[in-house]
């Protein structure tokens, strides 16, 4: 899945979409909303690196009918001067189906921080932060009633067709999900097959790209017990390599979330979540899952010492995540996120403070302490300001 910019074909499609919609409903107004964001991060041990990132998201609230819904969101990276489409899709709503075509979010979250059987790689509510997976593709959902649904997704990256090789289906991703909610229980069966590209480099020469397939199938559940909720996942990973033997593994995940109240009058809410994921055969690791990326929503990458510091964490056979959030009042919370693995003892500790400053302005102060499992700790800190309009 590649980063996508304003290439000519996308620009034409974008303006064509706007043009068509204007002809359909010329009298309807288009509202614009979104957010502007600034990040400043310091990281390092000895040699300190600093990164400033700024950007914006613009959502065009386009006219929609009862059965046809368009969505358009632009993402702007001020630092690198790049603009990209975050979402651009048309959704057709039928009586018992939904068909979405274009660049769209796909979220197969089920309540865990990391869903090992999500369509790609996404993080939900880690230290209050969530990433959303966006793909160029088609999503067909058949509604079975009572919230049950069968979902089929196909994504086609930018290079699925080129003049040299023509259409290469091996570069497409596919997946399906069967969702079966019941009273207090959410149950899903999911299977995904995605390409993972590896540049073939030898002696600093690029010999092309290998395309492997990463196949995953499993089930997830979440059960509500009033005072807490229990969730889990289990399934199978199969990595079919272009130039080597296949690798497979079994993945198990178990987690819980709960909330309770502290203070003399029980007025401060505390939310706690914990989950543990393990690659049973130790053949694959979280890094394989992260390599799927977050789809096309990766407009900018930050090169810092962070990648090296977290390497032991993402290449280990297991991962423990703890989320703790303490609500000081309705405008402020402090919290802690912890990620750790048990083999080398590598860990990442991320305390944070979130403040709603009013008037659409939100502030976040975050720290990070990355321990590589040996003796090195890489500290970091960051400030984030976000304005919604």
């Amino acid at each position, binding site marked *: 899945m590649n980063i996508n910019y304003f290439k000519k074909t996308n620009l034409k499609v974008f303006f064509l979409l706007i043009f068509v919609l204007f002809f359909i409903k010329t009298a309807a107004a288009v509202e614009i909303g979104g*957010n502007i964001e600034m990040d400043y991060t310091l990281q390092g041990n000895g040699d300190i690196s600093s990164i400033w990132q700024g950007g914006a998201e613009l959502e065009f609230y386009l006219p929609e009918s009862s059965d046809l819904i368009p969505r358009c969101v632009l993402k702007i990276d001020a630092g690198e001067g790049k603009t990209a489409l975050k979402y651009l899709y048309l959704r057709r709503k039928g009586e018992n189906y939904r068909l979405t075509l274009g660049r769209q979010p796909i979220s197969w979250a089920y309540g865990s921080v990391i869903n090992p059987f999500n369509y790609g790689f996404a993080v939900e509510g880690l230290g209050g932060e969530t990433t959303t997976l966006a793909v160029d593709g088609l999503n067909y959902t058949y509604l079975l009633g009572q919230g049950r649904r069968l979902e089929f997704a196909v994504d086609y990256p930018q290079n699925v067709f080129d003049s040299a090789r023509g259409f290469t289906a091996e570069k497409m991703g596919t997946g399906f999900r069967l969702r079966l909610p019941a009273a207090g229980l*959410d149950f899903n069966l999911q299977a995904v097959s995605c390409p993972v590209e590896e540049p073939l480099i030898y002696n600093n020469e690029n010999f092309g790209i290998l395309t492997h397939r990463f196949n995953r199938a499993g089930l997830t559940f979440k059960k509500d017990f*009033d005072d807490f909720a229990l969730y889990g996942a289990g399934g199978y990973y199969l990595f079919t390599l272009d130039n080597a033997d296949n690798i497979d593994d079994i993945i198990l995940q178990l987690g819980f979330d709960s909330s309770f109240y502290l203070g003399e*009058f*029980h007025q401060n809410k505390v939310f706690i979540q914990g989950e543990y994921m393990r690659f049973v055969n130790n053949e694959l690791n979280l890094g394989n899952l992260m390599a799927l990326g977050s789809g096309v929503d990766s407009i900018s990458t930050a090169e810092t010492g962070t990648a090296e510091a977290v390497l032991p964490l993402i290449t280990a056979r297991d991962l423990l995540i703890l989320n703790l959030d303490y609500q000081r009042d309705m405008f402020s919370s402090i919290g802690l996120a912890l990620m750790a693995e048990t083999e080398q003892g590598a860990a990442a500790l991320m305390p944070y403070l979130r403040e709603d400053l009013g008037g*659409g302005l939100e502030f976040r102060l975050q720290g990070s302490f990355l321990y590589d499992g040996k003796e090195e700790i890489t500290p970091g800190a960051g400030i984030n300001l976000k304005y919604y309009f």
Partner: protein
Amino acid sequence: MIKKLVVMLGLIVFMVGSVAQADDLTADEIIERVDDNQFVESAYLEARMIIEGRRSRENAMYVFIQDNNSFMEFTAPPQERGTKYLKRGDELRMYFPEAEEAVIISGHALQEGLAGSDFSYQDMMESEKLTELYDYEIVEKTELEGRPVYILQGLLKEGKEAAYYDRKMWIDAERFTWLKEELYARNGRLLKVSEAKELQEFEEGRWYPVETVMEDKLLKESRTIFIIDHLDFGVDIPEDTFSIDALE
């Protein structure tokens, strides 16, 4: 002379009788009349929720209500726009527009405030009539801000579940709508105080609060103002408005 005396006596008896009748209303009768006004079988409303604490925030929403179901979508502020809540019976689901995914609100999360307000998810969930949930008794008849009111105390009935164990209500004795409420926990702790700041007559004799202030007594300087800008009772709502599939 005697005729005048008889007429006057008749008038006096009539007036005394009328007053005696009004004062003879039982607690259940009073609450039933309140339920007649307050209980909503179907409605559409547009409203704003102003949250005041150390800072303030205003949420705007529209709501469909029918029987035991309700659907709400936030239209403001920008960070909440598109967030939806669907209540079907005892189950509450929330739709996140960013991920375009709906999740069930876990039981332990129902105590927290809706979008940071002093109205909890559990406040939202209650859809039974007061007479079905509480046993009431009249404490006294007095006045509140110039209006004649009954003060009623209600205790949660055995086997029933509700957000509050004990409710003390100031009921307008002429309009039969609540003007003030104190909400208590089982241990007697005062949790919230709610006041109706403005009432509006929608149908003849049907008064409904269009501006309500809820104060959370467990939090310092915390209150939420709920203002109804538009309200239609008895609307015909399409069945699929409350379907889980329509949420996403």
